[in-house]
């Protein structure tokens, strides 16, 4: 019973504490994908809280009602094997809950793996996000620019991130826009995000990748399409071109500030685009567009592809 009160007190304290704070990043979505995920999270918290409360109430009842100190000396507890009704309820209700959550989960899977809801008819902006120890390189093939450790994106346009890594496995995560996905050295994964409103968001590598992992973050700024276009123009006018030797230097382990270049590294260091385990329709679909966008890399790719598959 003390335990009950303790837990209750702890949870209340936490709730009060939280109420006084800013909303938690994950529960403060700024895009459709993150919103779906936040809704799933809140829904599951609600259902799960009911289960926890039922278990706690039952436990409290049993512990208070049947403790030895309240019973007569000669009370002999009965031998009870089980009861089909009770067991049917104890199996049936969890099955219904799990079935319902599975239904929601499967639906959400297809939603977060495809173009964000409400953005289906807009052409996605493809950004290649690659990681190296311990920084992020963002290539905008459409705009022909590249940034390091910061990301400008237009609002009201779906963004299609192509993720890969020049080193250990990393995980690309912008909590307020949507959940993370791995970036690996031997394949490209696709993450669909979109920002509903302008704003500044935190982005980071969420998968441990060695010494510089804690600071492996980047800033995300969402802005209107016109602001974004202005920024692109400005970059094209002012930034230096990204050369192969410059890029090789960037890949060396270490932390860098924010940097901006014209051109992308995709020309001389293409993404490892072949498919290890790719069964989502959307990825296959979008891959066509990349191939046409980056014709120059197709030659290197075939060779690399064969190496990887050990032919």
């Amino acid at each position, binding site marked *: 019973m003390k335990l009950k009160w303790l837990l209750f007190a702890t949870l209340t304290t936490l709730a009060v504490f939280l109420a006084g704070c800013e909303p938690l990043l994950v529960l403060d979505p700024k895009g459709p994908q993150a919103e779906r995920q936040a809704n799933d999270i809140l829904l599951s918290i609600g259902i799960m809280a009911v289960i926890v409360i039922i278990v706690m109430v039952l436990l409290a009842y*049993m512990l208070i009602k049947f403790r030895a100190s309240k019973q007569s000396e000669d009370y002999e507890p009965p031998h009870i094997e089980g009861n089909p009704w009770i067991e049917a309820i104890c199996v049936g209700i969890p099955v219904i809950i799990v079935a319902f959550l599975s239904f929601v989960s499967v639906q959400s899977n297809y939603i977060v793996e495809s173009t964000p809801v409400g953005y289906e008819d807009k052409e996605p902006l493809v950004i290649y996000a690659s990681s190296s120890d311990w920084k992020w390189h963002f290539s905008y093939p459409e705009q022909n620019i590249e940034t390091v450790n910061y990301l400008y994106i237009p609002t009201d346009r779906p963004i299609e991130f192509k993720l890969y890594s020049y080193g250990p496995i990393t995980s690309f995560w912008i909590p307020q826009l949507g959940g993370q996905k791995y970036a690996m050295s031997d394949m490209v994964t696709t993450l669909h995000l979109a920002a509903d409103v302008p704003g500044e968001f935190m982005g980071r590598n969420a998968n441990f990748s060695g010494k510089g*992992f804690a600071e492996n973050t980047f800033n995300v700024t969402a802005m209107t399409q016109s602001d974004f276009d202005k920024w692109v123009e400005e970059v094209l006018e002012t930034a230096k071109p990204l050369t192969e030797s410059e890029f090789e230097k960037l890949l060396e382990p270490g932390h860098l500030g924010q940097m901006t270049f014209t051109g992308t590294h995709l020309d001389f260091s293409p993404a490892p685009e072949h498919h290890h385990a*790719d069964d989502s329709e959307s990825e296959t679909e979008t891959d066509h567009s990349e191939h046409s966008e980056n014709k120059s890399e197709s030659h290197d790719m075939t060779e690399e592809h064969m190496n990887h598959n050990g032919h």
Partner: protein
Amino acid sequence: MEFFERFAIPHPSPAIYASMVAIGLVSIGIIVGLTYFKKWGYLWREWLTTVDHKKIGIMYLFSAILMLFRGGADAIMMRAQLSTPDAKLLDAQHYNEIFTTHGVVMIIFMAMPFIFAFMNLVVPLQIGARDVAFPRLNALSFWLFFAGAMLFNISFVIGGSPDAGWTSYFPLAGNDFSESVGTNYYMIAIQISGIGSLMTGINMMTTILKMRAPGMTLMKMPMFTWSAFIANVIIVFAFPVLTVALLMGTTDRLFGTNFFTTTNGGMDMLWANFFWIWGHPEVYILILPAFGLYSEIISTFSSRNLYGYKSMVASMVLISLLSFLVWTHHFFTMGQGALTNSIFSITTMAIAVPTGVKIFNWLFTLWKGKIRFTVPMLYSVGFIPLFTIGGVTGVMLAMSAADYQYHNTMFLVAHFHNTIIPGVVFAMLAGLTYYWPKFFGFMLNERIGKWGFWLLTVGFVLAFFPMYITGLDGQARRMYTYSEATGFGPLNLVAFFGAALMAIAFLTIVYNIYYSFKNSPRNIGSDPWDARSLEWATHTPVPEYNFARVPQVASSEAFWDMKKKGHQLFKGDFKKIHMPNNSGVPFIMGMIFFLAGFSFVFALWIPAVISLIGIFVCMALRSFEKDHGRYISIEEIEETESKLGGAK
């Protein structure tokens, strides 16, 4: 000079040098002490060469407690480093080594030996057997575990600790990104103890299938034996995967193969898949025996039979099957697409159903019972709500789309500690207190034990519940520092206080052992808890042969029936008892494995080859050995029995 550089620590710090000195002093102290008190012979005869399952169990138990403190020291350092923003207590490298060793030590070298301790101590007694099926193999299992544990533990003072996380994902764990020998230690130490675990799995399976007392059908086995049986079946299926994965990882690191590299066709994800095909069932290897212990304890202290015995067994069988079908939920974010994620999301959530059945069965075991709040019972009823919270957050994590937000965050860290600590650690402490009188002949102090329980519970809640929140606020796991602007500071400080309370709780529990050893009465009889199953039907302390006469079993609560219904448990006269002989070979083989492991870590090929030959020589010698064991005579049995409280 170059020779010594290889053994130097790549990232030394004053703490490591201090530990070196401490290890040296303790070793010298042990050697001097043993010599001074003339205990070398005793140590060799009674412990190092023993094949008695009870003594092996006790050795597992003490190793596990030792490792609990090793892993706990790591935990405290981590929480201290994270207690304030921008703390400078540890640097990134040191922090990485610490969380890696914390994970490995706690899972492989603390939780595993802890469950093996209870399997060894309790299973043969519960099924009315004289020993396990292969006593000498059992000793070898222990010494392999011990060799692996010691090899892993010297890593931070010789050559550097592994720093790629306990999951050791490639390519980070490959030579390109982890240059020190740390990951070699990881691969080889876990391999050695893993071989020991696999042998235990085979041994225990055989024991339970072949050595049950007459009348004990499978559906009359006590619940802990059932849980141990299923856990060992999982071991036998899961550990070979780990063996192969570690071997591939070792050859990648030592011989330049390219299984998991980024070039030449290596597939980094292959490691992750292998690791979790072992790693997920491993969770159930740990938790199922814990469930078994809870079943015994809740039933004993409610003075009631276990409610829903059959559904308990069925749920464990179902969990064991499902445990092999969910590994992908450890990397929903790996880009395998919506279909795969959906399948694994459903299989993962499905585990909640049999687990829920177990929770309700325990609740209904309390129903109409006569509940005594002893220390083991406190852990067991404390486990129910805490584990339920851990379980439901597991269901939340199983929703793969939402998992994109939880993955790699402190939310996940909170979840698995919320299942493993109330699930496994509480069960081990409950079992420790519950079985202590049977194996050591005195009770642990209840008052101090209750202090330990409450400190641990409060500490646990404070340490881990804040992490759910910081996780949802974007705190990734394994970050050695964070800025003040993130706002993670206050909750991490709370977590640090929780961790400190937990440390105090563990010290209290150890103090309890010391205090009770000094002060507790020794005339406690053989059944101090008024228990129900067969292990309490033998004497305290348990004689070498466990049962003078083989018990005749008619239900899963044979001992209870004997006490209450006048069931005849022991019939007939004494017969001479066949027992295995002690052997030094398992210990020696364990030590050679240690040397072989050390040589492989540092790629010292000549000693490596010599030790490998030594291992094969030991095996060859065994196959030529004519050792048929020995018999305990009837007179000797009568004498022991009358000394321990008269023949029943």
